[in-house]
Every structure is written in C-alpha cells, then in structure tokens.
C-alpha cells in the first residue's frame, strides 16, 4: 500500500473514531435520555480549546496568537482537563436551561446558547485568539516517541481506537443497566417517570454532564491531531451531522449510532469529497448539506427508529410448568 494511501486511511480512521466518540456522547443525551442538545458542538469546542491552551504553553508578548490560561501540561493531562472543563460547563448550562420548558423551547435555548458561544469566541480576542483561532498545538508525545509522521498517525489511530473502546464500554454500562432503562422511560414519558418517583431533573442533569465530558474529550483528541482550532471548525450545523448519524443509525442503540457515524459523517461526506468540483468550488459542500437535511427528513419519515432500532432488554425465560393465560385484548 502506498504511503499516501496509508496516510489517507489512517486519517480517515482517526476521524471515524473521534466522530464515534462524539456521537456516543450525543446519543446518551438525546437518544437515551431524550435531552435535545443542539449546542453539543460547543462542548466539543470547549474541550478542544481547553486542551489546546493547556498544551501550547503560556502566552507571551509578541506571540502571533493570544489566549488565556496557557500552560504546558504533559499528555494526557490536557485531555483530562478538557473533559473536566466541558463537564463543568455542562453543569452550569444544564442547571440554567434544563428546566421544565416544552421540549422545542428547550431546543431553542440550546441553539441560541451555541450561537452566543460562537459570538463570544469570535469577539473576545484575548480568550482563544478570536476568529483566527489557535494553531501549532503540539502533538502529544511527539518528541518522546520520535516517530516518522506516518507511523505517528497509525499510533494515534490506535490511541483513538482505544479511547473509543473505553467510552463505548462506559456508555454501554449505562444503557444496559437499570439506569439506562430509567433514562429511556424518562425520555418516553417524563411525567409518568416522575409519578413513579424518579427525579427527572437530576437524571437529566447527570446525563447532560456525562455527555458533556465525552464531548470535551473528543474535542481534545481532535485538536491534538489537527493541531489547530477556530470558530469555523465548530459552527452549529456540525451538531446536525452527529444528529443525522444518530437518526440514520438508530437512536439509543450504541452499535446503531456507530454504524450511523460510519455512514454519514465519514462515509457519505468522505465519499462525496472525491466528486469533481462542478459549477464552482464549494458547490459540492452545499449539496452535502442539502443531503444531510434530506437524509434527516427521509429517515424521520420512513424509518424514524433508524437502521438499527433500540432493543429492549430480554431476560432469561424461567422454567415454565404451565402455559401462560391468554392476555385480554
């Protein structure tokens, strides 16, 4: 296999794993717990920014970029910090906005929050270097490992695969447990869940924070790979790519949304990258977005449960002596 082919595949794998991490987090919030978080990408961004400034070293006069809280923390501390900061921010946002608003109002609050976040990041120039964003973020352990670029990429892909597996097991631990069941119940009918004694607000807040932590970690891992991050990297429509992956793959089904991630952000968007540029540069991108929108609509119409629907738990049948009575109609 040629070197450039290897570069392409390893990059694709890294993108795939990072997207899967992000989608698993959003799936927890949206697919399992029914929290609409149109601002998800903001928490990814916060993780990325945190990791970036904690790896870039302190800011200094004459630096080409200006940011707050610079430090030179060694790997993997910036990633952990990213998770913590995103988690804290999720806590604050959750406490403020996860009130009993009707669900589409709640969705709008999140959407507007993401727009405000973009405004702040772009205009507060000393914070994360405004519209230009941050660059030259060092790759973790690059000087320790001392590898050729291609080898480093494969190692990084392996690292992403490992992290993804950890996050997958963590998320699955929730969804396969009584907690997962309670969350799905709350999603399906929060009044009934409350009437059975479940504290809906606390559960939602908890999952919102957990999802935020995962989002932050995925952002951190991403920025350590592409080494740059700016407001253009995380505009609010990005959340809809993740959402499309969830809707197509199958909300609340962890394997389903991973397939959805393979199909939508990676498969579809990657495949169309190779189409020749027609009409003008950027036409293909515009059509990609049209297709993402249409994909969401088509699936919501024809197969809202996704390719791999959610599967309720089944229990070992007990040794049955007599046949069960016929249920009433």
């Amino acid at each position: 296999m040629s070197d450039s082919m290897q570069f392409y595949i390893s990059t694709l794998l890294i993108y795939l794993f990072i997207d899967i991490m992000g989608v698993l987090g959003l799936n927890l919030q949206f697919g399992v717990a029914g929290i609409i978080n149109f601002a998800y990408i903001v928490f990814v961004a916060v993780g990325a920014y945190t990791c970036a400034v904690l790896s870039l070293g302190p800011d200094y006069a004459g630096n080409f970029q200006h940011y707050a809280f610079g430090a030179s923390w060694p790997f993997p501390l910036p990633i952990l910090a990213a998770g913590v900061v995103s988690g804290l921010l999720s806590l604050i946002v959750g406490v403020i906005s996860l009130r009993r608003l009707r669900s589409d109002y709640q969705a709008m609050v999140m959407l507007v929050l993401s727009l405000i976040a973009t405004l702040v990041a772009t205009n507060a120039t000393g914070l994360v270097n405004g519209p230009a964003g941050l660059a030259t973020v060092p790759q973790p352990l690059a000087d320790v490992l001392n590898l050729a670029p291609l080898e480093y990429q494969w190692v990084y892909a392996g690292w992403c695969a490992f992290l993804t597996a950890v996050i997958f097991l963590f998320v699955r631990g929730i969804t396969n447990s009584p907690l997962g069941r309670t969350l799905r119940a709350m999603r399906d009918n929060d009044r009934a869940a409350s009437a059975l004694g479940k504290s809906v607000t606390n559960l939602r807040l908890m999952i919102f924070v957990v999802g935020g932590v995962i989002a932050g970690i995925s952002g951190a891992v991403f920025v350590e790979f592409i080494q740059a991050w700016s407001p253009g990297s995380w505009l609010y429509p990005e959340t809809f790519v993740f959402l499309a992956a969830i809707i197509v793959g199958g909300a609340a089904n962890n394997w389903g949304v991973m397939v959805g991630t393979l199909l939508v952000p990676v498969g579809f968007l990657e495949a169309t990258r190779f189409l020749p540029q027609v009409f003008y540069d950027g036409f293909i991108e515009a059509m990609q977005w049209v297709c993402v929108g249409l994909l969401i609509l088509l699936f919501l119409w024809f197969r809202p449960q996704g390719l791999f629907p959610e599967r309720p738990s089944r229990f070992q049948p007990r040794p049955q002596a007599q046949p069960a009575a016929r249920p009433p109609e």
Partner: protein
Amino acid sequence: MSQLSAAVGFGLITASILSIAAVGFTLQFSVTNILNLAYGDIMTACAFAAYLVNRLGVNIWISLVVAALFGAVFSMLLNRFVYFQFVRRGTRLFGMIIVTIAMSLVIQNVLLAIFRPTFFSYHTSPGASYHFGGMIFTASQLGIMGIAVVAMLGVHLISTRTKLGKAMRATATNPGLARSCGIATDQVIDVAWLLSGALCGVAGVVLVLNTATFSEVTGATFLVPVIAAAILGGIGQPYGAMLGALTIGVAGEVAATVISPSYKDVVAFGILILVLLVRPQGILSEVASAKEVAA
C-alpha cells in the same frame, strides 16, 4: 443626544422590519404550534425571488409583491406537504423542530448551490433623505416603515373584522373546538400560512432593502431577533410580536450606538435567552406557564 435620536431612528426601521417578520412567524406558531426555524431561510428565498425579478428590470417595490406571493405559496406548500404530514403522523414537538431545522439546512444550501457564495444587491436607490428631529430617513426607509404600518393594520383588521380572522383566532386557541363549531380548520391553516408566508416574503425584501447586500445566510442570521421579538411579546400573539419587535429593534440600535456595533446582536440574543429562561410565555401571554401544565 443627536446620536441617540439617530439611533432611535435606526431602531424604528429595524423594528418595522422585525415586526413584519415576527408577526408572520408568530402567526404560523399560533395556528400550527410549530416553531418554524426555516422561516429565516424562506425570507432569504423570497429576497432572491425579488432579486431575480428586479434583475429583469422590474421596480423593486413591485418585485416585493412578487416576493410576497412567492413566500405565501411556498410557505403554504411547505406546511401542507412537509410539516403537516409529520404532525399528522404524531411527530412530537422536538421531532418537529428537527424537521424545521432540516428544512432550513436544505433551503439555505439549495440557495447557496444555485446562487453561489457571493453577495447580491437590488437595483434601487435609497432616495432623498428626510429629517425628523434628530432622526434621518431615506425615502426607501420611509417606504419600509409605511409598509410595516400597513401590514400591521392589515393583520389587525383581518384578525378582528373578518370571519377569516375570527376563524384563525378560534383555530389558534382550540382547534378541536373550532372544528366542532363548523370551522374548516384545514383551510384556515392554509390561509394562515399564505398570509404569514406573504409577510415572510415582504420581510425578506425589506430586510435586504435596508442592508444593501445579502447572501444565502442573511435571513437565517436575522431569525434570532425575529424569534426574540415573537417570544418576548408572547408566542402566538400578533400584538405581542409587534411590541417585541419595537423593543428589540430600538434597544438593539441604541446599544449599538451607545456601547459598540457588535452589541446589536448580543442584545437580541440576550433578551431571547432571558425571556426563555425567566418568562417563556412572554409579556402579553395569559398562559400560566409555557404550555406544559400537567393534567
């Protein structure tokens, strides 16, 4: 001081544009209970429709009428063949908001694909300037304010004086009851979307008239102040939308002059978030809480 009165003047223009848009938006919500987040993109589409006609040499004010017609028909068809179909299937509230955002993505990017990522403007001139106190208005801007007044009066008259208006209000308050009173709610909803779609179209064109250049994101960017105005005044209440538009329009321009230009958006965002969190039912609403009362 003259800066302040000039700012108020700008505020009145913005409020005029906002009120046309916000009343349309709130009307759609009142009869179908949907927050149509594609509204801004339909405004853009109508602005483009006017642009095409205008490029053929037609006067912009006539093109505006064409845009209004386009907006009316497009919005009505959108509701009938997309939104209503999902609602009929039992799609829940947050499912509908995803549907409207998906439509927004589609419309915006289709416009981008057709017209390319560049800026456009109308073939028109602002006209002479007029001074009122410390405020300065061009003839165009006076025209915009005039249209806003006419539109608001029209909505008021239709709503209160005509059978259609009463039917719309009945459908908005209680569709089931309206139906059992013999009101053809389906047709009323169609008409409501025609009307609000026309307002959407007018709003799109006057928005562009006031901002000189536009692109495929112009309408979508304007949507936040529109929603802010609609919700501030009480979603579903046309008079509330007018009040909200006035507040946000003037407050935004004053903030832009007094503090800094980038604060214009912040005011709209800030007001919207505050209202959503503190009093989601808006100022003029009589509902005790934001439509989530149990039992």
